[in-house]
Every structure is written in C-alpha cells, then in structure tokens.
C-alpha cells in the first residue's frame, strides 16, 4: 500500500470507527471493568473501588438485591421465550400471505404490518394501555361479544407480562414478516413444480420444502427477536413501572433503575455483564440448534 492509499483508508474509516470506538467499545470495556467495583454513577470513574466478584455474589445471593435481579432475569427470559415463540410462526404465516400472488392484498398487508413497526414504542404503549383498559377498553368489550369474560391484562401480576408481550409482537411482527418474505423469494420455484409433479400436497410442500429452506432466515429472525426482546423498556417504564408485584420488572428496566436512578454503577454493570453473557450463550445455542449442518439434500 502506498502512503496516499493508507491516508485515504484512515480518512474514510476514522469518523465511523472512532465514534463507535468511543461510544460503544470503550463503554463496553468500562462496563466489564466496573462490574468488579463498587462505584456511584454520580461520581467519576476514579472513585470506583475494586471489590472483586462481590457484585456477582450479590446477584446470586439471598439478599433483596439477588432476589430482585433473579426475578427480573426470569421475567426477561419468559418474555423473550414467548416473544420468539409467537413472532417466528406468525412471521412465516404472514410472510406466506404477503408472498402469494393468487389472491389480492399481499402488498396492503405488508404495508399495514410494517407501518406498525414505524410507530414509536411510547405511542404503542399509550394506545395499548387504553385498549387493555378493563372497563373502557375495546378488547374486553370484543371478548364479551364472543362470550369470553373480561381479562385483567396489565392490572394483574398473572397477565401483565403476557400483555406486554402481545403489544410488542403486534409492533414488531411486520419486520419479521418482511424477513420471512425475503427468505421465501429465495426458494427456487422449480422445487415446488417438481413436488407438484410428484403429487405432494400443499401441506407436505410446506413441511418438506418451505420450512427447511427458511432455516437460515428463521435463525437470523430468532437472533434479532431475542436481542429485541431483552430491550423491552417503554411499556414497563410508562405503564407498569415493573409491577404489579414486580411481574413486569425486566432487565433493561431493572438495570437502568439500579445503575442510573439508584446510581449503583458497579452493581448495575455486573447485571449488564450477566445479561450480555446470557445473550451470548443463547445466541450460540440458537446457532448450534438451527444452523444448517448440511444433512439436508
């Protein structure tokens, strides 16, 4: 490489790389470092006092710190599992409806589904808090029409977390539908034509051709859905504040409350590190389970 080439390489890369280094990579390293310290977020980094693994022992211990953290961790795990379990099948089903061309409306459906993805989560939370309202809300009213008794939705610890999963799925499913459509367009048509010649039913075609060939798309969708799910914050911050009875206290909300509002920066960082490690484990597991290992023909 000549000198001018080196200069232009550095010139092109410097702004983006520098910004990401300062505002993402450095804080990432700091989070890991601070997780071994006791440190008030209100003071400078130099006041952090090394405490070894004490924060992590607190998270595992029997004090209220540990109990609250594990509750938030559990809520996030349930939340993530439910979100992924709803989003993936829905995205494939809706993707098929958008992708098919023998009936009209595919593009309309895509437009409607994807516009919900553009709506600020705060607005989503506000609107759904009204839709869920036990008395003035239309959801219980509609359930009543088909003979289902009114539900408690956000106001009971038993149903609050699921209610937030539902509003999040509503907001996000359009994005995953577009991903599914992208996967569907990659499947060669000739496979279906051959299957038709062999007399395979539509049901068989779906299980033997469509689903196996969507594997990589579904893997990508699952990873993104997991990462999105641990970020749920607005509906909790706005409507439930983690309640009722801590039933919607999720990781992003809990870490922010501990690390920013209560200024326990070391403890909050230890929670953030635990979250990141758990995410890495989940993503590695997803890859091992779903990756195409070439056993298909």
């Amino acid at each position, binding site marked *: 490489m000549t000198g001018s080439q080196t200069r232009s390489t550095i010139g092109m890369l410097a702004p983006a790389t520098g910004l990401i280094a300062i*505002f993402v990579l450095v804080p990432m390293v700091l989070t890991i470092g601070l997780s071994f310290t006791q440190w008030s977020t209100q003071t400078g980094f130099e006041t952090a006092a090394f405490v070894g693994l004490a924060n992590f022992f607190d998270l595992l211990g029997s004090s209220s710190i540990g109990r609250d953290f594990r509750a938030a961790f559990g809520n996030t795990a349930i939340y993530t599992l439910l979100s992924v379990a709803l989003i993936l099948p829905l995205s494939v089903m809706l993707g098929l409806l958008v992708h098919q061309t023998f009936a009209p409306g595919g593009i309309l459906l895509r437009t409607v589904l994807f516009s919900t993805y553009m709506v600020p989560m705060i607005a989503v939370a506000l609107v759904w808090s009204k839709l869920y309202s036990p008395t003035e809300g239309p959801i219980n009213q509609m359930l009543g029409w088909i003979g289902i008794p009114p539900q408690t939705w956000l106001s009971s610890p038993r149903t609050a977390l699921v209610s937030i999963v539902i509003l999040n799925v509503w907001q996000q499913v359009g994005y995953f539908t577009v991903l599914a459509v992208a996967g569907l367009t990659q499947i060669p048509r000739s496979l279906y034509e051959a299957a038709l010649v062999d007399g395979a039913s539509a049901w068989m075609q779906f299980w033997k051709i469509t689903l196996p060939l969507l594997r990589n798309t579904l893997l990508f969708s699952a990873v993104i859905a997991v990462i999105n799910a641990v970020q749920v914050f607005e509906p909790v911050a706005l409507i439930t504040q983690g309640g009722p009875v801590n039933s919607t206290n999720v990781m992003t909300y809990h870490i922010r409350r501990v690390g920013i509002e209560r200024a326990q920066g070391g403890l909050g960082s230890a929670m953030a590190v635990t979250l990141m490690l758990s995410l890495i484990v989940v993503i590695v597991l997803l890859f091992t389970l779903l990756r195409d290992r070439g056993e298909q023909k």
Partner: protein
Amino acid sequence: MSAMRPYRRYPATWRWTLVSLLILAIAVAAAFPLVWMVLSSLKTPSESMQVPPVWWPGSPNLNAYAEVADVVNLGRSFINSAFIALVTTSAIVVTSLMAGYAFAKYRFKGRDWLFALLIATMFLPPIVTLIPLYRLTGYLGLNASLLGVVVPNLANAFGIFLMRQYIKGVPDDLIDAARVDGASEFMILFKIVAPSVLPAIAALTLFAFVYHWNSYLWPLTVLQGNTDQYPIVISLSRLLSYNRGAMNTGLVMAGATLAVLPPVILFVFLQRFFVDSIVATGVKG
C-alpha cells in the same frame, strides 16, 4: 416475484375468496390499534370514559389537539425530535458511506477483523453500555443537552454494513476510471459511488430517522429531566402521568397521533427502499 404454486384441492374461486378474506381480516386487526388511536383523539372527554366504550366519535372534533399543545410544550418537543432525528441521520449517512466504501473497495491489513468487530456492536443491546456511557457524556459536558442525545449516535454499525453490501456492487472500473482522471477519493465517493447506491441511502435515511425519532431510553437517561430538551416521545410519556388523574384519553391519543405521523408518513412513501434493504442485509448478509 414468483407466483404461489398452484395446487388443486379446492376450486380456485373458493380458495381466492378464503385467502382474500383472511388477508383483509388480518390487515384490519393489525391496523385496529392505530385506527382506535385516531378515533379516540377525536372523541369528547365523556365519550372516552363511557362504559362500554364508544367506537365512533359522536361529534368528531380537534379540541384534544388544541389542548395537548397547551399541556406539554408540543412545538418545542417537535423541534427537539426533528433536531435529533435530522442531525443523527445526516451524520450516519455520511459516516456510513465513508466506512462502507473503505470496507467494500479498499484492501488493508486487518480489514475483515475490524469489520467483524464493528458488526458485533450491532448486536449489543444499548442497556449493556448505558451506565458508563452516561458518565462518559457527563465528562464531555454533554449531559442534560440535545448534544448529549446526538453525539454518541453519529455513526452505527448497521449503516456501515448496509453501505458495504450495496457499494460492493458498484463496478471497480467506474472507480478506477475516475482515479485515472485524477479524482480524489472523496470526490469518487460522493460524485460516483454515492449516486449509484441511492436506494441504500434512502433506506438508511429512513431507518435512522425512524429509529432516532422514536428512541426513548437514551434521551430519557442523558437529558436528566431537562424538560426543555425533551423529544416528543418523552413529552408524551409525561402526558400520561398528567392524564392519570383526569382520565382524559383523548388528549393522550391526540399526542400519540401527532408523534406517530412523521415516521409513518415517511414510511408509506418510501417503503420500497426499506423492504429492499432488509432483503439485502438479512438474506445476502
């Protein structure tokens, strides 16, 4: 776009009707919350509180919109949101074009390693770095100001990734020819490469604008309760606490409708670019 494979079990018209109805039903159900939001913003306060709920406003009026402007500083919040979204978006487009060009067309030591490191940050939930970042912007004197919202968000890995995907497709001959003519690398990037990846620029513009118009966690944290600098989404959340006693749903819904408009309008006009870019990053990636 390939047609759905024709299979013969039901008569074609029967199947056509069934699928059309299914699509219509799902579209209506998906649109329902937003329709409800707009309808509720047009209702009178007493209509909003009726049990069972009234679906259609008896005398649709815009009173809630006038009132919401009084309760929160709506104009100021909109300007703040526009500032945040426009500054971050323009910066992201420029920094992503530059880095994407380097990763797509330059050969240098450690390129793939550096690219992988940057891409890894795409998968990092913001909460993981929130606490030290808050202290860091404090050191830089950016807390409690709009600059603090904007400065950490002037570049992102997704933009670099998207640009690299598209710029890879720009023919090398085009770039080499310009170099022979003595064009500088910046000239080449902005006069030749950028115009040939306009769909990617459109998609990134929309993604970045919508993301930063909607973003809540970081502005809420860094602004430290400085209400003058609040973007519309945070002002909206204050509306709910104001509203909690009064139960004036119309007000909240009017505010929500206004906040939703810019990103949704932008999307409806430019959705083609969104969809194409998702295909480019999600599948080919």
